[in-house]
């Protein structure tokens, strides 16, 4: 078996006396798409924060392609090939859409803190940014200030910033939060397109999105993973039905 792209071993996180994450074990293979579902307050976003470096775990190991990343700074983890999006839109609101995406690619192209390169001369950066911009469908909004976009456009930009850097492991935190049905369907298409060949870990509440994208689903309840299996198996899992779906699971067809 190959090295998991992302491996969580007995991760625990405590805030004061409250233990939010109580021993999570999760292994995600390269190229896999895993959705994390669970009731509110189960610790899904906290898990994302632990993986992406916003917090350090109280104990346990987090391995990215076999490398320890627990306790590293977010920028360092990002440089190792992990990128995340945010549940509450986190974009550079005073820069244009194009500039947002260009900022996202600069480090991955190796420019670092350079002040001796002229931005307008960086062809590769411009081309990658434009390519991502087209794929997220915001080419026609290239020079619009990001703060003036509609909500769905900002969510799309959020995803764009996340994938622009070319990271191998993508974490999406509720990418379709607040979207209408049609917007969600478009978002699912977008997510499937931009994560081709990459490892995807996604927190979602919308079941149609989950069933449309995920290879496997991990169910998190009270800081523990109670099941991690294919969507069909999860749907039939009694524990999951009881804990998450309240025991009254309607028969759901995948979107």
């Amino acid at each position, binding site marked *: 078996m190959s090295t998991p792209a992302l491996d969580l071993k007995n991760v625990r996180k405590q805030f004061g006396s409250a233990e939010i994450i109580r021993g999570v074990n999760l292994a995600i293979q390269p190229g896999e798409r895993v959705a994390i579902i669970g009731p509110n307050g189960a610790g899904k976003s906290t898990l994302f924060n632990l993986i992406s470096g916003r917090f350090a775990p109280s104990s346990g190991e987090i391995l990215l392609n076999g490398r320890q990343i627990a306790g590293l700074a977010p920028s360092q983890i990002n440089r190792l090939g992990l990128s995340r999006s945010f549940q509450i839109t986190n974009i550079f609101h005073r820069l244009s859409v194009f500039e947002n995406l260009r900022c996202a690619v600069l480090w991955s192209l190796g*420019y670092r*803190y350079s002040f001796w*390169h002229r931005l307008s001369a960086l062809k590769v950066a411009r081309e990658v940014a434009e390519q991502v911009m087209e794929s997220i469908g915001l080419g026609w909004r290239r020079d619009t200030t990001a703060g003036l976009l509609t909500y769905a456009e900002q969510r799309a930009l959020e995803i764009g910033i996340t994938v622009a850097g070319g990271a191998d492991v993508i974490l999406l935190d509720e990418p379709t939060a607040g979207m209408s049905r049609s917007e969600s369907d478009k978002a699912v298409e977008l997510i499937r397109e931009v994560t081709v060949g990459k490892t995807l870990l996604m927190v979602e509440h919308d079941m149609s999105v989950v069933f449309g994208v995920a290879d496997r689903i991990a169910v998190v309840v009270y800081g523990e993973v109670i099941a991690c299996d294919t969507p069909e198996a999860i749907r039939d899992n009694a524990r999951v039905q009881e804990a998450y779906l309240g025991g009254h699971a309607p028969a759901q067809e995948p979107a």
Partner: protein
Amino acid sequence: MPVGLIRYSPINLGRWLVWGGFALALVIAPLVFSSGSSLSLLSLMGTMMIFSLSYNMLLGQSGMLSFGHAVYSGLGAFFAIHAINLSSSGTLQVPLTLVPLVGGVAGLLFGALFGYVTTQRSGTAFSMISLGIVELVFACSLMFPGFFGGEGGVSGDRVFGRPFFGISFGPQIQVYYLIAFWLFVSAVAMFALAHTPLGRIANAVRDNPERAEFVGYDPQRVRFLMLMLSAFFAGISGGLAAINFEIVSAENVSAARSGAVLLFAFIGGTGIFFGPMLGAIVGVLLTVMLPEFTKAWLLYRDFFHHDGHVRTGRHGQPDRDEPAPGIQGTDAACAACHAAAGRACGHRSDRVRDADRDDVSAVARRGTWHFLEFVRMERRCYVDACLADRDLYAACRRRIFSATTWRVSGCLGGCAGRA
């Protein structure tokens, strides 16, 4: 792209027009406003424009509100004036045209030193720490008179060495063109810096430092680098101020000056690149022209000059009772010097008439700006005119270059008494 296809890249005409217009305005401004005090005003505007632009690198581009930017320009000014003095005495060989660079490098080094500490935090904490640093440096400047010159500050003579193609940098117009040159170069450099990866990421850190972290950049490192570069340009402006006024005192590192540049940047607008330059022009005009329009200029004078710069002794009268000590020259030499200075300096200022030249207090009542102008031109006049008599020059030089103006008047008075 197929070989043989001609690439058409239109020249960015707008950019060439704007920068060309700017350069043209810099060149012809002293020809349009050619009076002595206008030249001094333009020179002051020039140094403040560089200062404001460097401040906007922090405020508008990186989102760091600093209350202590004068530290870097002031320390740059001090290093520059010492470089001038060392070059005058022959210990160093720094040509005057490169003295602003000395200031710039000093600014850069102190930017690295203080910046490492101040950029550990952002937002309000950063602002307060920067205020603390400027007050700290200001307090230190009075504690180390060896380097900072104590209350009187450090004076120097910008005319040293042999003139370069006839340019000695004695006349104000030559200093103006030096300032204009450095202003253009600095403005181009800062504009270019805003369009580099670091400049753009600094904008990103301004907008959303957390997101910048998650795209691979350390916000603290970005802020640190921007502060160092901003301090470099602030040091250049400080060096030019040292050349322009030939004196640097604790006021150059004061919180008042930091507040002034903050005001100028906001007046002009922090969102566009040229904004702070306009703000500096307007701000300098306000601070200088205010005495013209209000009798409360004394109030504003004390707000802007709370140091020995403008001290007219007790009760606002120059201290004429104390004779200028140390004048060694003969009566004849003194008379000759005074007469030569009178001829040379009579037409210097169209605001300060000859009749008042010996009555310093009358000039002082006209306003701070005229007073400083008068003092500065008197100093320059006497230096130029009295070079013939080396002994008198050497003796008077100590007094002429002393910060407190009552000593200048004392020297004038001492000579006048014997003329």
